[in-house]
């Protein structure tokens, strides 16, 4: 792929192969992502989406291949951060202290850390909750805090692992809208894992479809497609349904046992 030589890529993965105990479950993943780009990774459950996300950021070592996040050493920032499926806030820390987690160990003063935590909290509309305990917040509010915690370190790449899948439909819609707004206020490239195809088409610039894991063969990237829709009010465009159907067809084909490789 030519995009691999993209000079401004902040995240670059080459021929990534993942698995457990030496047995590959996902092979040959190439990805290059520029600043502010948004890629969604979709695929049937068990295809290795979350595993791929963890390999891209380095939480899981790959079986083969390389992944690299370009990160000029900017004081007080981290190369990447993550929003998890469950908010996973530390219940023993107040909200502000939760958001400060990634800022600890970066040589910032206590006051500076607090200031840097309050800014993203304001961005997700929760600055008046800073001194509350996590258990007093709703699921949607907790996930917003999870997003604020990830934004606080000003990452070059933001990894999101099905961040809205545990929320009710109304809250999910609202947070999807907020993420579209948030994108315009951060330089971070976003890698977003979801099993919800509508969500992928709604949010992403590019969709990476994983599949082809039949008869014990490892999965691979079966297609990468550009969404090419305006950022705002995507759901209302006639092309939205067409994009969703295309991805659905790809996933369906990719999981068909009789499908030719």
């Amino acid at each position: 792929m030519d995009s691999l030589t993209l000079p401004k890529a902040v995240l670059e993965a080459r021929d990534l192969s993942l698995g457990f105990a030496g047995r590959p479950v996902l092979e040959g993943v190439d990805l290059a992502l520029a600043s502010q780009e948004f890629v969604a990774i979709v695929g049937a459950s068990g295809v290795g989406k979350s595993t791929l996300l963890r390999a891209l950021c380095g939480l899981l070592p790959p079986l083969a291949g390389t992944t690299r996040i370009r990160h000029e050493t900017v004081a007080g920032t981290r190369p990447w951060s993550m929003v998890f499926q469950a908010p996973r806030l530390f219940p023993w820390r107040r909200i502000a202290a939760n958001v400060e987690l990634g800022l600890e160990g970066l040589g910032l003063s206590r006051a500076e850390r607090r200031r840097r935590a309050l800014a993203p909290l304001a961005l997700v509309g929760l600055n008046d909750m800073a001194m509350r305990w996590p258990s007093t917040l709703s699921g949607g509010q907790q996930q917003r805090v999870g997003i604020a915690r990830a934004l606080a370190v000003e990452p070059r790449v933001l990894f999101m692992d099905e961040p809205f899948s545990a929320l009710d439909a109304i809250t999910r819609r609202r947070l999807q809208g907020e993420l579209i707004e948030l994108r315009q206020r951060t330089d971070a490239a976003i890698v977003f894992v979801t099993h919800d195809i509508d969500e992928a088409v709604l949010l992403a610039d590019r969709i990476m479809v994983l599949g082809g894991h039949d008869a014990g063969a490892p999965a691979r990237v079966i297609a990468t497609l550009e969404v090419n829709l305006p950022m705002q009010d995507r759901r209302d465009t006639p092309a939205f349904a067409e994009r969703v159907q295309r991805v659905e067809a790809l996933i369906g084909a990719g999981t068909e046992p009789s499908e030719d490789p």
Partner: protein
Amino acid sequence: MTEPFSRLRRTALGAFGLTLFVALWELSLRLGLLPGNLVPLPSSIPAVFMAEIGDGIWWEVVSSSLTHYAVGVGVGSVLGIAAGVAAALLPVFNATHAWLARLLRPIPPLAWIPFAIIWFGITPGAAAFIISIGVFWINYFASYSAVRAVDPGFDEVARAFGQQRFAARLTKVSLPAAAPGILGGLRAGLGQGWMTVVAAELFGIPGIGQRMMEASGLLATDIVVVYMLTIAGLYALFDLIFLRLQGRLLRWTP
């Protein structure tokens, strides 16, 4: 769960039950249903208590027992928590000492009395040593299982946010997440400490236990009861203080 009684009603019933028990006790002695040389008269206890305080004996034995207790519980808790947390976090340490722990665990604290005397002599150190053994195991197992039960998701969060060093994960994840369980063990250890404090003093180390042995030798059952009640009172006081502290430390629990 719905409470069948109001709080006031429960307090009243509790007080009634206790009063009834003491009244029946007093009555059976006065009616000659119980032999007076084996059981003291409840109504005589306050006067005996005042006499023990007046002689200065009460303060003396209580303060030496409290010293044994404090040192024993302190040492046993700190070492027990440290060993339990280490066993939960360090697989090599855990595997290395697993058999040793299995071997030593069932030995009752009092079985260590011969060694306590050989190593420490008839000293407060010997009593503290015996107390610390029971407290150690309670804290060891409570901390071990509390840390083992911490959601591994929290560990992943720590690693995802740059807190991958052992010290950072220990202080930012393992210890606070396991705090409810560790504090539960600490509280059980505070109770266990009183169980052994008397026994540890029976072989001649000055303290509540020794005073009770002396009194029983003279069939002064009223003095024995005074110290039984003293232990109950001290236990309740310590437990109350600990519960306050625990409530503060665990403010975050829903």
